[in-house]
């Protein structure tokens, strides 16, 4: 307990919002809440100001804006803008250097991401050009570099101080340093008050911005903030003769990507940091107090042995400075930073406690942007930058366990500068959630990929004979990069589905029922489509943000007058569940029941799906007897099965839902009945990519997110329901205006690279004119590939992208940049018209 000398000095009895933690995030949040008109804010920290002793105080403070994640890049760019406005940004540029050919290829990918997210200028300098930028770097050890002139260094403590003072000047903020949070009281599921070493404060909204301490503070309220403190090693060497007259930052920051290190000049010193050492994870409860610490609680004793290989590597790259006997190691720490199970921040209201917010696992480069975003979410329920990937509600309980956090954080640590394939799978803590079909799937040689802890077959080795059957119709990938985390079997499974039938394990679906007299109002309120439909209808509908963009897309079945079953993807299921829960009426007239772990789902699709399924049931499955978009219970063998006739792969078929204990039996019945008809098991490689892309079906998190609206996505529909729903006002506006961009489907015309290898885009690449100019819509958004994948039935590689109106023209000739080369492509569809079976004859057969 360290209220220190100020113990006993009182705090306001109540506050509008209590912000816990006065690092870069808390200060930024206070500033933006004040800017948005919020008053009676209280910012508290256990430590002193301006440096309370958290990670902000020892951060290396440099910013490279380019990241493969659009969401993280957006937060970073917004942060840079804010730092610039505050006058604390020093633009010194940065160079990421490559020592290996693999890294050189990765740098071309970074260049593509820079173009996709609109970060320019950037360049790929030769070793000699790198040497001109960084004259003390030994160019003989590198193959090239990636230069970002807009990279820079910030004074994050000063930024925090300025933002805090702005909020104070506005009369919106009370600041209490040396104030320890002792408890957070929750009443009726909502935050009620914060208990501190200087008294209690009533507040209905509390934001935890405590960096590495966040889990500990959240636990006081019964909530979880799944992050772990982890060590990042840093040393400072000097005085460097070459920098003798240097003031501030004068040389570009260097990232030595292949060694997981960085070197940067500041004043007369060179700072060397590393992400190469073994993952060193700490427990939030084990961080020393301010009084016990020799430096600060997050500057732990340096462990020399972990850093020794890095010294050698730094010496290789910068022998003039690092090899200078007169230059000493003046400062060396194991600095603590926050790591999460998936590397993304933790933003938003916690799913456990209403009014308790998290703004944690945020680094300097995204601090102010994250502060602004969370402030907008608190005030408006919506944010300019879509942060669904960072939504704290995204985790399944099994992902919030200490074991999972530690395993994934440890695995992710060394990927910090890694070359991470977009489909790369985690290796640690696998096998946590299994469907009841998994025993059969393993027998069939399923290759499992993970989503939200679920193990899902991505493809089946048992289908290898299909490669012979479909021979030339199955594209092989010549380049190792694209062949990684992929198999031609996926395309063969796809073709078998289109020819015959396939069964797909969809048990990773998140399923919850909204039930009760008020249920219709709830689903009507969140869904774009009309939900007051006949019992037995299945409705595919977007859910919108208040701003009329996408919050989710999912299927809702009306099972009874007062029972609606929501089925959504596993990846976003937990966040979707919170969204519904947030809209439940206060009077308890509707409730949410999670059925995810009670039900499993088996899909069967393909031209022979009806014949196969009909052979197992006495129910009428004819087109008239079971029309499209209907759901009802049928009997398959001895099992009562909820069947829903919809499709995300564009073929005739059903989703079959049974209790988990019936799963294995259902699988066997369908497999046996399908065998004479050539049914195959098909994996998510088909369901999630090839099947939907041929049909131009959109996916949340790829095409659909909080930054594109329904009209742009080509999903507005002719009719709009009269009932009120979230985002209606904005949506009406969008229907009136000319869309800034339209979601289009493109096909690649020529795959052959300059070296003669056929290359296949994987997503995220920039769409350019044939002349190489980026496409920018009137809202400033670049065109980039939202999804990419094979269309085996079309024999084409398919790309989806939002294109500005003037380019959203059928037959329009454009280019896609991939690994440093441009490939011609053509607009094959504008809007939602499918490339394959454009009349949807198959689905409705």
């Amino acid at each position, binding site marked *: 307990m360290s*209220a*220190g*000398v*100020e113990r006993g000095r009182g705090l306001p009895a109540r506050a509008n919002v209590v912000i816990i933690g006065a690092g870069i995030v808390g200060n930024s949040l206070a500033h933006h809440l004040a800017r948005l008109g919020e008053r009676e804010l209280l910012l508290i920290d256990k*430590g*002193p100001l301006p440096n309370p002793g958290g990670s902000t105080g020892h951060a290396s403070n440099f910013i490279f804006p380019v990241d493969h994640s659009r969401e993280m890049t957006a937060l970073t760019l917004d942060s840079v803008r804010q730092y610039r406005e505050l006058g604390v940004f020093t633009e010194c540029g940065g160079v990421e250097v490559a020592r290996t050919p693999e890294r050189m290829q990765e740098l071309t990918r970074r260049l593509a991401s820079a173009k996709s997210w609109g970060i320019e200028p950037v360049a790929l300098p030769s070793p000699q050009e790198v040497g001109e930028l960084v004259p003390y770097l030994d160019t003989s050890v590198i193959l090239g570099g990636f230069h970002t002139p807009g990279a820079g260094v910030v004074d994050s403590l000063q930024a925090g101080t300025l933002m805090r003072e702005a909020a104070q000047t506005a009369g919106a903020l009370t600041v209490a340093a*040396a104030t320890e949070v002792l408890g957070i009281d929750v009443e009726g599921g909502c935050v009620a008050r914060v208990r501190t070493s200087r008294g209690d404060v009533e507040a209905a909204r509390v934001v935890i911005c405590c960096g590495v301490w966040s889990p500990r503070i959240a636990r006081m309220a019964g909530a979880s903030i799944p992050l772990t403190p982890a060590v990042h090693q840093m040393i400072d060497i000097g005085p460097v003769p070459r920098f003798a007259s240097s003031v501030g930052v004068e040389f570009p920051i260097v990232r030595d990507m292949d060694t997981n290190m960085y070197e940067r000049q500041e004043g007369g010193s060179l700072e060397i940091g590393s992400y190469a050492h073994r993952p060193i994870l700490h427990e939030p409860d084990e961080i020393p107090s*301010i*009084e016990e610490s020799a430096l600060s609680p997050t500057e732990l004793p340096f462990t020399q042995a972990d850093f020794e290989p890095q010294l050698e590597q730094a010496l290789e790259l910068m022998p003039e400075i690092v090899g200078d006997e007169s230059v000493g190691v003046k400062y060396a720490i194991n600095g603590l930073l926050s790591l999460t199970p998936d590397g993304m921040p933790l933003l938003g209201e916690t799913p456990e406690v209403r009014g308790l917010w998290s703004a944690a696992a945020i680094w300097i480069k995204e601090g102010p942007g994250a502060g602004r975003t969370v402030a907008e979410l608190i005030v408006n329920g919506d944010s300019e930058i879509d942060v669904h990937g960072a939504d704290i509600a995204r985790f399944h309980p099994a992902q919030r366990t200490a074991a999972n956090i530690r395993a994934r954080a440890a695995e992710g640590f060394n990927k910090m500068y890694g070359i991470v394939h977009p489909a790369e799978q985690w290796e640690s803590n696998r096998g946590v959630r299994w469907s009841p079909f998994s025993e059969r799937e393993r027998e069939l040689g399923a290759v499992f990929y993970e989503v939200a802890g679920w193990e899902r077959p991505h493809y089946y080795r048992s289908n290898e004979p299909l490669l012979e059957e479909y021979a030339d119709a199955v594209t092989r990938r010549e380049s190792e990069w694209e062949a990684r985390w992929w198999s031609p079997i996926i395309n063969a499974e796809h073709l078998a589905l289109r020819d015959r039938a396939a069964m797909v394990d969809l048990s990773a679906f998140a399923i919850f029922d909204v039930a009760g007299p008020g249920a219709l109002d709830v689903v009507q309120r969140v869904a774009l489509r009309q939900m007051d439909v006949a019992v037995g209808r299945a409705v595919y509908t977007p859910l919108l943000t208040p701003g009329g963009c996408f919050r989710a897309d999912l299927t809702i079945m009306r099972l009874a007058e007062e029972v609606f079953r929501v089925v959504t993807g596993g990846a976003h299921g937990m966040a979707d569940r919170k969204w519904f829960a947030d809209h439940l009426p206060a009077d308890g007239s509707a409730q949410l029941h999670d059925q995810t772990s009670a039900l499993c789902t088996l899909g069967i699709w393909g031209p022979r799906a009806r014949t196969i399924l009909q052979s197992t049931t006495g129910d009428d499955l004819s087109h008239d007897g079971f029309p499209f978009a209907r759901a009802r219970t049928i009997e398959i063998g001895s099992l009562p099965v909820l069947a829903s006739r919809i499709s995300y792969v564009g073929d005739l078929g059903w989703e079959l839902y049974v209790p988990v204990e019936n799963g294995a039996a259902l699988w066997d019945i369908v497999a046996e009945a399908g065998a004479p008809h050539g049914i195959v098991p098909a994996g998510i490689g088909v369901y999630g990519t090839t099947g939907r892309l041929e049909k131009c079906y959109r996916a949340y998190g790829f095409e659909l997110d909080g930054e594109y609206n329904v009209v742009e996505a080509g999903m507005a529909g002719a009719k709009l329901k009269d009932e009120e729903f979230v985002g209606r006002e904005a949506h009406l506006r969008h229907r009136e205006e000319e869309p800034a961009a339209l979601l289009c489907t493109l096909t690649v015309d020529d795959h052959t690279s300059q070296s003669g290898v056929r290359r296949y885009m994987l997503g995220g690449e920039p769409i350019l004119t044939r002349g190489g100019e980026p496409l920018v819509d009137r809202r400033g958004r670049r065109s980039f590939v939202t999804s990419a994948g094979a269309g085996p039935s079309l024999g084409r590689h398919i790309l989806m992208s939002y294109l500005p109106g003037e380019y959203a023209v059928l037959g329009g000739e454009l280019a896609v940049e991939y690994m440093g080369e441009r490939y011609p492509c053509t607009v094959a569809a504008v809007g939602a018209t499918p490339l394959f079976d454009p009349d949807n004859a198959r689905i409705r057969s």
Partner: protein
Amino acid sequence: MDALVLVEHDGGAADEVSLQALSLAAAYADGAVNAVVIGAGADEPAGLGGVATAFVAELDGEAFAPDAWAAALCGLIGRLAPGVVIAAGSDRGNDVMARVAARLDLPLAANCTAAQPTGDGASVTRVRWGGSLLEEASLVGSPALLTTAPHAFAEAPRGGGAAIERFTPALEDGDLLVSVREHVDAGGGGVSLADAAVVVSGGRGVGSAEAFAVVEELAGLLGAAVGCSRAVTMAGWRPHSDQVGQTGTKIAPDLYIPCGISGATQHMAGCKGAKHLLAINGDAAAPIFASADYAVIGDLHEVLPAISEAIRKARQS
């Protein structure tokens, strides 16, 4: 059981710390407390309260010769067989007692704050970490060799009455090889840190050597000595002679003003003797405030110039 105490003195007048050692001896021993007095002016030891016999060693030359002092003590120990031998935990006291312990191959407990005899030696409490930690220890051997932590014991009364016995210690070859050959006085000017009535110190928070100007300005106005923390010395901003702390100078001013010093144990060990402590620090939770009488919470670069200005104004009016 008798006690023998090495009394350091200034021209025959016992040092305060030696009187403290005598006070422990009186409490520890149930027999006589005897003293040994060596060096310039030792002929007429004065004010050795409670001492039965003061043994005055007669050595060639008056310069401090620690091995000869140790030889003198060892000779008396052999002759008097005391149950305990005590010196002050001063530089010289600790030095000479270490040599005695080495010669007799006996354990020595340095800087004790308490000691009682036991069946096979002594039970002691001694200071570690410059006083930040206390150690309970068992000493096995006789006589028990102890030094006293400064200011841990009351001073024995400066009464007279001790019998005086002169003796000439038996020296080994080489016992006079180590002796003080000359004394160099400190360069004049400035206020000595150790003796200053007011000390203003700066820590890491000052930021640079040049930035100490604000500390010097206030010190100048108060006639104070300038001190600093170890971090400052290590950074090369100030000479080691300015360092207050466990491994620097131990100060005992009327008022100590540490600025931008967090209060690490290393530093606090050097300023325990300050009568009043006015801490200036931006961190209200800084450990320094736990030892402070007065606290100013704020950045020293704002606070110090304001105080200097206010002093000037106060003096003008």
